[in-house]
């Protein structure tokens, strides 16, 4: 069956046009077609959060979104957020506080935490926990991650 279609997607500010099969997930498209491997693939059924990207400014699971669905839309991945520098403070604090070990879950967690801090400038620990509840980390035990998000929020407030 040849049902491939052309899609044009803006990823991290750059326009890409690619010929894709409808069954390709956004996660596989980003990794294999665009070579942006910062988006990770874990469970592939929406549980682990490793594949989180931004679609039109909001975080989504790229394993539960099809690449064809994003035709005409804008995607931001961890590469985009890293290069723009908008989360560099959080990345530094994650590093400092050992909020990552193997790093597999980290891109998804950073994107999710970034959205939380956009919505709520100074979330309490419970709110951080709740917002990150859809991101699994098998290394850190989460406490360091919550510490890091909390500190990022605090520093951003102090910096104002």
């Amino acid at each position, binding site marked *: 069956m040849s049902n491939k279609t052309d899609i044009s997607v803006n990823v991290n500010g750059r326009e890409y046009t690619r010929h894709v099969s*409808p*069954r390709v997930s956004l996660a596989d498209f980003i990794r294999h077609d665009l070579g942006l491997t910062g988006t990770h693939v874990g469970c592939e*059924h929406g549980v682990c959060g490793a594949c989180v990207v931004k679609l039109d400014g909001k*975080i*989504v699971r790229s*394993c*539960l979104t099809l690449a064809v669905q994003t035709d005409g839309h804008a995607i931001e991945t961890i590469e985009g957020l890293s290069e723009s520098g908008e989360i560099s403070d959080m990345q530094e604090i994650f590093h400092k506080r050992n909020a990552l070990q193997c790093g597999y879950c980290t891109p998804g967690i950073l994107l999710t935490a970034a959205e939380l801090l956009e919505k709520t400038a100074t979330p309490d620990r419970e709110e951080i926990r709740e917002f990150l*509840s859809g991101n699994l980390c098998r290394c850190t035990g989460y406490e360091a991650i919550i510490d890091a998000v909390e500190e990022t929020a605090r520093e951003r407030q102090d910096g104002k």
Partner: protein
Amino acid sequence: MKPYDFSYTRATSLSHLYDLFDEYGDGLKILAGGQSLITTLNMRLSSPEMLVDINDLSEISSISLTDNIVSVGALVRHAEIQESNDIKQHVPLLKLAIEHVAHAAIRNRGTHGGSIAFADPAAEIPACVLALNATLVLASREGERRIAGSDFFKDLYDTELRENEIIVAIEYPIAKKNTVSAFREFTRRKGDFATAGLALNGELDGKVLQSLSLVFFGVANTPVLARQVADLIVGEPITPSLIEKAQNELANEIEVIGDLYSSEEMKLHLSKHFLKQALEELQV
């Protein structure tokens, strides 16, 4: 992991969707938020011939308020429900429930109508549809029909929705001054489908409930309206002995089905516990 191959089309209007219904019959699947559907595709547990993406149908993607109903378009995302002031003010039960639906990234994508059409017996939104006796607006080429929430859920994943029909809106009656709501659920992990849960909606005058809907979910093939238990409570002052009577009646009225992790006994225990907690909350 790759799904089986399928074709993909974006519906440009409802009537375009009806054309596709005619063309593909039961080989067609509607793709709304896709948060459950794409999981089953990824696991090759489902192999539709044609996936019709309805995400461009802006006519069914907003919340509107009239004198006595809040109408939620089928494509409204869970996150929009969570952030809506109209929902918070006029459909408080839904606001309580939405906090328990999955996770932020899934709430940004998952849709209100999708959750109802999917009809998972352990999901929060179908339970609210039943507890609030919302009216579902179903549309097809033949026109629209309205069906009461209490008539919609038939059996495990089986609803009144026909093959050539789509849910376009869900109409919730506006809460009155004396409307009270409570929501409880137990999950193995935050954001999971419920092991057992309760959605309560009623009207409270002083210490006496004038009307009451109790919906238990995660315990059977559909969300279950416990009518007898509610009848027992309505019109009576809420006292510890009434709560105990209601708990005992609950064990008689609903037939609980266990699962691999949680036995019938556990689910019934949780249901009784939630009933007590929710009624006690109303007393305060």
